């Protein structure tokens, strides 16, 4: 009886908590987690796009956007260019982390953070000057709903990038795959935010 309890105690000392989860060798947990999260995000955006197209195609009679509203396409275009640029900078940061080039990693992360902040600032500025609110009919609701949903994602992305920046400047992250997940995972999320914006921009402002 005594030996049994000693053995159990020794075992408990070696393994705290549940056993290690089974992991496929093809993808690490963190990356799989963010990819699955992105899949759920695509569905969320899909619901908003479905609402947008329903309002525009089925419920709307006449011009789109309805008179007298106008969308600032040029400003949104500049914002699009800013966000696409930030995909290049986060890619630079990740490549820097993989190759051990810390300066490139830090520069890329900082530039991405600044570009994201600029994007968000321009979008808020656009909301201030656009001349209609979310209460101005279905058009206003869906416009603010869709662009606001995306803006919220940019905000979350900025938070993730803030942590990545702090860690990068504190000397974290290495060249091994498991050591730069803190750059890679926010990077995947940021690329997703960029892709969604391209689709939002084309759908809402161009088509």
């Amino acid at each position, binding site marked *: 009886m005594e030996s049994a309890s000693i053995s159990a105690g020794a075992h408990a000392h070696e393994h705290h908590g549940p056993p290690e989860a089974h992991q496929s060798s093809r993808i690490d947990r963190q990356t799989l987690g963010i990819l699955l999260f992105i899949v759920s995000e695509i569905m969320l955006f899909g619901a908003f796009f479905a609402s947008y197209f329903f309002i525009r195609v089925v419920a709307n009679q006449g011009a789109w956007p309805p008179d007298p509203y106008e969308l600032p396409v040029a400003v949104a275009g500049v914002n699009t260019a800013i966000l696409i640029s930030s995909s290049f900078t986060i890619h630079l940061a990740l490549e820097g982390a993989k190759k051990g080039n810390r300066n490139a990693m830090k520069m890329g992360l900082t530039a991405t953070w600044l570009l994201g902040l600029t994007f968000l600032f321009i979008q808020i500025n656009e909301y201030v000057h656009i001349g209609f609110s979310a209460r101005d009919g279905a058009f206003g609701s869906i416009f603010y709903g869709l662009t606001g949903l995306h803006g919220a994602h940019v905000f979350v992305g900025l938070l993730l990038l803030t942590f990545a920046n702090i860690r990068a400047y504190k000397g974290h992250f290495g060249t091994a795959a498991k050591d730069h997940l803190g750059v890679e995972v926010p990077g995947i999320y940021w*690329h997703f935010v960029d892709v969604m914006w391209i689709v939002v921009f084309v759908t809402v402002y161009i*088509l």
Partner: protein
Amino acid sequence: MFRVVLIVGVAMIPVILLAVVIDPLAGAILFGIEIGAGIGFLYQRYRAVEPRAAEVAAVPDDGVHRVLVVANETVGGRALLEALQARLEGESRSELLVVCPPLAGSAAEHWSSDIDSAIPEAKERLEASLATMRAAGIDVSGRLGDHHDPNQAIEDALKVFPADEVVISTHPPKRSRWLESGVIEKARAELPQPVTHVVVDLEDESAEPR
């Protein structure tokens, strides 16, 4: 993921150009087409394929060495005949079944099952090849197979012909549609029997003096 940004960005350029220069509806149509193509590509690229084992007849322990040969245009090839003779050398009792799936001339014919012209051609090749093999002293029978999928033709044959091994004959790489579609790899993955691949270069054989 960075590549996705690039691909989506580049894909949106013609959409924006069409919408701005011609009409937003034209841009929307192209946008829809691109989304459909993207989903189709992702489906093809990432769909999971369950590993499966072919359902085949159990091989009886009766001392007869059975070989299933699958060939289409190369069924009469000299390299195939020589390979079969080499395999059967030393076997006291052997049986051969040659399956010849008719091959449609084009993708459209293939998917519409328009193999009316392919069947007699395949039959003719099979008969000629069977005659050659019998003349070489091989106990052989033959049949046409599923035209859609050579692997299905193999599995169908193995349900009634409990072969000890399978020989698949194809054109050389770059000229063989079967090799391009991974028939050999699939057969090796799904069949319990050993699978041998014989390459028959009909152009070389017709150029060589007999």
